[in-house]
């Protein structure tokens, strides 16, 4: 169909990276908690909190490092509450996770109303710019460099951090002692206890790590394109990230691929909206990420079941 070349071009790569990043960060956070056998439903709420405080702190201080700190710390605070309620107070992980999401929504909207007199969104007049990669403009038209240009030019520091984080996560989980302990906790907490370690402490650590990842993810969402916060702006990205982690088998690299798949769906949805020639309703295309996620998840469970019976 016409318009397809406009869709499938180098710009798509850029959109791909842009949309994959928050999913990837959510997914990496979920990888850590999943390795300790916690299904992190609260990721969504943690990211929403981070997105808000990224904008709020950034607008107030006009400082990028402080904005990022605000995002990460606020998300980690949420994750600390989650960890406390579930791991220390013994609450049900699902109910508590949903509670965190409700709490995040409540807090962010409350503060939106209170601080900015607008329950819907907050767009600061001035906002410090997040560091972005700038590649030489003359790369744009060259074959290989052009691809790199369209893909990487203008991407925020968080994007690159996320990619590095994939590698770092892999190293931490598979090459450090604490990674071994975390993985052991997820599989057999009794063995961990018998070894003299504390599985609860390890679980709390993974939740806090996921909070930090959520912080970065939320910051990316808020600061990558439009420096603004809109209520409920995460729109399910936390759950997509969770699904990516499940689909990617709770490994960092598997999750990277899964996140890219879901990110692609998002990117296509985004690009399609600006290509009138394709004549596809934006609503339908926006459905794509969720539908793809659900299908992928189902597929993963079918495979898993087969693997277990076989």
């Amino acid at each position, binding site marked *: 169909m016409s318009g397809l070349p406009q869709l499938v071009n180098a710009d798509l790569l850029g959109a791909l990276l842009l949309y994959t990043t928050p999913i990837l960060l959510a997914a990496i956070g979920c990888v850590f908690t999943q390795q300790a056998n916690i299904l992190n439903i609260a990721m969504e709420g943690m990211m929403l909190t981070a997105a808000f405080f990224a904008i709020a702190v950034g607008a107030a201080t006009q400082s990028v490092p402080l904005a990022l700190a605000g995002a990460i710390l606020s998300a980690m605070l949420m994750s600390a509450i989650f960890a406390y309620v579930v791991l220390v107070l013994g609450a049900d992980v699902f109910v508590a996770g949903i509670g965190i999401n409700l709490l995040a929504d409540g807090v962010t909207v409350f503060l939106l109303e209170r601080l900015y007199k607008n329950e819907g969104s907050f767009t600061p007049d001035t906002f410090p710019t997040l560091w972005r990669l700038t590649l030489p403009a003359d790369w744009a038209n060259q074959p290989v460099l052009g691809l790199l240009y369209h893909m990487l030019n203008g991407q925020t520091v968080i994007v690159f951090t996320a990619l590095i984080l994939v590698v770092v996560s892999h190293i931490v989980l598979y*090459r*450090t002692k604490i990674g*071994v302990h975390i*993985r052991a906790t997820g599989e*057999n907490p*009794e*063995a961990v206890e018998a*070894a*003299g*370690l504390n599985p609860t402490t390890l679980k709390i650590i993974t939740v806090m790590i996921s909070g930090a990842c959520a912080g970065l993810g939320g910051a990316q969402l808020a600061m990558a394109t439009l420096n603004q916060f809109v209520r409920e702006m995460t729109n399910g990205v936390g759950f997509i990230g969770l699904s990516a982690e499940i689909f990617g088998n709770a490994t960092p690299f598997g999750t990277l691929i899964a996140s890219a798949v879901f990110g692609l769906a998002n990117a296509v949805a985004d690009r399609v909206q600006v290509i009138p020639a394709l004549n596809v309703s934006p609503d339908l295309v926006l459905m794509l990420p969720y539908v793809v996620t659900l299908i992928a998840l189902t597929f993963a469970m079918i495979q898993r079941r087969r693997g277990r019976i076989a």
Partner: protein
Amino acid sequence: MTTTTPLIELKGITKRFGNLVADDHVDLSVAEGEIQALVGENGAGKTTLMNIVFGLLHPDEGEILLRGKPVTIRSPLAAARLGIGMVHQHFKLVPSLTAAENIFLGREPGKGIMVQGADTVRMAAELAERYQLEIDPRARVRFLSVGQQQRVEILKALSYDAHLLILDEPTAVLTPQETEELFHVVRELRARGKTVIFITHKLNEVRAVADRFSVMRDGKLVATVATGEATEADIARMMVGRDVLFRVTKPEGTPGRTVLQVHGLSGLRVDGTPAVRDVSFEVHAGEIVGIAGVEGNGQSELAEFICGLRPPTEGRIDIDGVDVTRQSVVERRSAGLAFVAEDRMDRGVSPSMSIAENLAAPHYRRAGLATRGIVSPGRLRRWARSLIRQFDIRNAQPATPAQSLSGGNIQKVVLARELTSEPKVLLAAQPSRGLDVGATESVHRTLIEQRSEGRAVLLVSSELSEILSLSDRILVMYRGRVVHETAGRDATDEGLGLYMMGLKSDHPGESR
């Protein structure tokens, strides 16, 4: 016996769980460098005792002396520091980590945060070499055989420089070949000056390796004998002989037609290991057939296959001549099967639902409690009340939740529900488990009544006294096979005990 100080001595160790006395003033002594077996039936208190030695439990009374000095063992780590190691029946291994990683979990070599893979492997290899225990340190535990996994566990215990190694039912999960290899390992350990305590109920295997036996029964230590001194019959008597608390007098039975027939049934456990091997037997109307055996020899799985809760891999099950092997639970119930599951809280009742609803669950249509799917609360209540009366369920109103009842009364609810449909076959698995004497008596009386009314009763129990008291015919299961069949009146506990412990078999040459 020499008069040197024993390596470890337990004096008057007592442990209670509520009203249950798991260990009753146990005196045990283990000499340095010996292999001692701790034998007894399920529930004799062996594992509890060893868990106390290993620091997982704290004794209510008594003391432990290590080389003559009293010690308090607060935790497994403390035990490890005292040189005591234990390998449990259910391994505490992490499947996706390697053998080396499992052995040194929490004690990884190297100062920094990074794992020193090569060093860990080297240390594990050295350890294996030292004790002549062959394992591949680099292999992921998930891919190791059970015997190999056990070796990893043993190495883990030894890596703490254990002088005393406790093995809990180590041969329960091993093939005969692996068992031989284990014995070789244990002998090697003894040669290196280690002391080993073995918990087991498999006498025939242990005789090959142990220097001495200590027999426990009902929480008490009955005797400690050197291996050569006692005959098999002596040991069996020590293990199972008891004053039977009561013997329900039963009238002479008149068994009728074959109601339940099992042909060549084989099947696996949930984890894929063989549980039941080529089991065949019949149960006639008006008779109680008891399946005896120490738990873990396939009886639970056999019950599940017969009830239709899990599918067997081979074989046939007939109820009153009808082949039900492929039928669902519901269909088997219609064919006349009823069952009392072995864990009443797990499968027997829904604890939070009302007694009436628990009673009625499979019976709404049959008992006319509902018209077109709509329950008549009045009819349900009356029906439930009559059952409560009929089965003498105490402290029970139709509306009270099932979990508010005592264990014995919950079991009565289960029996009431299962028996009200006047089944042809009743399968009762561990029916008096966890019940006090009065409740047990009541259950037994009910089973005898059912027999008098012409039902076929299949009793699966690891309580030998129950089997002896109730059964017209007794089958003994060992390692998934029926190794013995006898008439109830001809059976003795010692006689059955020999078969239960694997010391004798009616079909000795059978391939494992």
